[in-house]
């Protein structure tokens, strides 16, 4: 069973993402031994990572702990369904910029939580979001520089036990208000070009691990697959994500505003629904 699950992880290239979810879901279903399994450790989490990192990054070299990228999360998760995670980029260490940051949660059924694409010259140095964490696990951030180098950093999160399952708390509400967005703009010191924004999207971001109680078939996963945040038509931040992002996906980030303008957001979910909204950028230091 174990080897079967790991084999199925080979599906985890970003391209075949939703296929992968289905494949691993079925692999896990077959494995009652996994249900009774022992808690993951740093070593076993590392082992899982080693088994699928080639599927995400191929044979490319990954450099560890250079300080270019930093990740923060609570050592012990309060709520496995809502684990805050912060990723910081040090621009001084990335003279050719950072193109993308990938967030990995080793032990999750879908370990590739999200890939963020950073707008060229958008000046994003901090991304904060919330994720589901199924068990004790490394959370990894891997930054890809403008020249194609991969820099990795990681933090270990203990998330398990109790009745805080990584599932949607209020499904009716999540469905009723699906697609609603809210943008918060945090004032920055005057004369600063840096803006801090928080984008919130109502969406159940369902796991697809729910079984229909009558048919016993899995209810298909339903989650925000793609997201782009732009100032006018200039990309600030894009995300390709999956079920490891918590319900009501939430992203707080900074960027360098390019004068006044509109913040435009477009999100697409696995049902093909497209959600759009836009807000004028509040001029703080503009």
């Amino acid at each position, binding site marked *: 069973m174990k080897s079967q699950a790991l084999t199925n992880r080979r599906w985890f290239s970003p391209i075949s993402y939703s296929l992968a979810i289905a494949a691993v879901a079925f692999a896990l279903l077959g494995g009652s031994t*996994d*249900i*009774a*399994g*022992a*808690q993951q450790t740093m070593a076993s989490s590392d082992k899982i990572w080693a088994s699928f990192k080639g599927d995400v990054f191929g044979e490319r070299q990954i450099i560890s702990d250079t300080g270019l990228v930093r990740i*923060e999360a*609570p050592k012990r998760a*309060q*709520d496995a*369904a*809502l684990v*805050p995670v*912060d990723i910081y980029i040090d621009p001084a260490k990335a003279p050719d910029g950072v193109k993308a940051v990938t967030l990995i949660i080793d032990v999750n059924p879908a370990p590739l939580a999200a890939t963020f694409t950073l707008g060229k010259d958008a000046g994003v140095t901090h991304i*904060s979001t*919330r994720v589901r964490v*199924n068990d004790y696990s490394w959370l990894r951030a891997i930054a890809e520089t403008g020249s194609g180098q991969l820099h990795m950093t990681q933090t270990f999160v203990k998330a*398990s*036990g*109790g*009745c*805080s*399952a*990584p*599932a*949607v*708390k*209020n*499904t*009716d*509400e999540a469905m009723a208000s699906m697609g609603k967005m*809210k943008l*918060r703009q*945090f004032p920055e010191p005057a004369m600063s070009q840096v803006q801090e924004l928080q984008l*919130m999207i*109502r969406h159940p971001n369902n*796991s697809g*691990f*729910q*079984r*229909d*109680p009558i048919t016993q078939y899995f*209810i298909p996963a339903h989650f925000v697959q793609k997201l782009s945040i732009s100032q006018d038509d200039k990309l600030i931040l894009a995300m390709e994500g999956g079920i490891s992002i*918590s319900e*009501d996906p*939430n992203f*707080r980030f900074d960027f360098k505003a390019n004068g006044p303008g509109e913040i435009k957001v477009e999100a697409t979910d696995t049902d093909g629904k497209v959600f759009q909204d836009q807000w004028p950028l509040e001029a703080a230091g503009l």
Partner: protein
Amino acid sequence: MPTDLFRRRLIKGFACIGAGAAVLPCCLSHASYAAGTGAKFALKEVADGVYAFGGVNELMTDANQGAICNVGLVVGDEAAAAVDSGGSMVEARAFLAAIKEVTDKPVRYLVNTHMHPDHIFGNAAFRDIGATIVGHRNLPRALAARGDFYLQSYHRQIGDALMQGIEIVPPTQTVDDRLELDLGGRKLELRAWKAAHTDNDLTAYDPATRTFFAGDLVFMGHLPTLDGSLLGWMRQLDELAAIDAAVTVPGHGPVPSAWPQALEDERRYFEVLAGDLRKAIADGVPLDKAVQTAGLGERGNWALFDDYNGRNATAAYAELEWE
């Protein structure tokens, strides 16, 4: 008629005392519990034909047999209804044995007040005796989403032995809004609530004795845990208080407790927690920072505060920032 202290000594780690529940005067039934441990499962008659067992204010462990919540029984002329099945098959079997000591009527119904393991891990024992399991319309969905996770995470928490026989058994009858269970000369009134403690909270009211089985919509002593909607819970407190009950069997806390005073402590906690979080959100304090201090003023008032407050604050923050 054992005193509290006596029973606590007698039953080792399985005392049925809630926080502040000093007096448990009439334990009518002592069924054999886990063989060899000397533990007893004691049903207390809280009103005519209405019984309850008081769980301990602890996390579920092997030592407490998972028996941390209150469970209850209402006996009619023809049949009985149990309210919640307990946190293990060991507890559920002891509960069934205790039921046999107080009535020879069949247990026709098991009412599940919501999805949490301490309330439903004994379901299989009731299914096996032919009881109809009744739950909120959202309970099947909630168990489908969480069942496997519960089995996995509690396996670690309570161990192999206590996990034996535990299955996730969904209800076979669901309640959309209200439902009356006919027990023969006695009706038990079930009511499905909007999202509060969870999104599948169901209560049971016995009009004959004005006893209200609140499930985990009411916590006393044990810090409330939030797995549904804080705002929904707060909004429904007045509606709960309006229920014409004399006493309540809360999901956690002294059995029985005066109604509606039983709601006062949790109402205060919710207001403190929501107040702290609203301020943090308005000030732009991010979630991970805000949850470290929100609600702390209530710390001295509750058991298990450190186990659950951070989690409650996390869930509540994510809800309140949409206001």
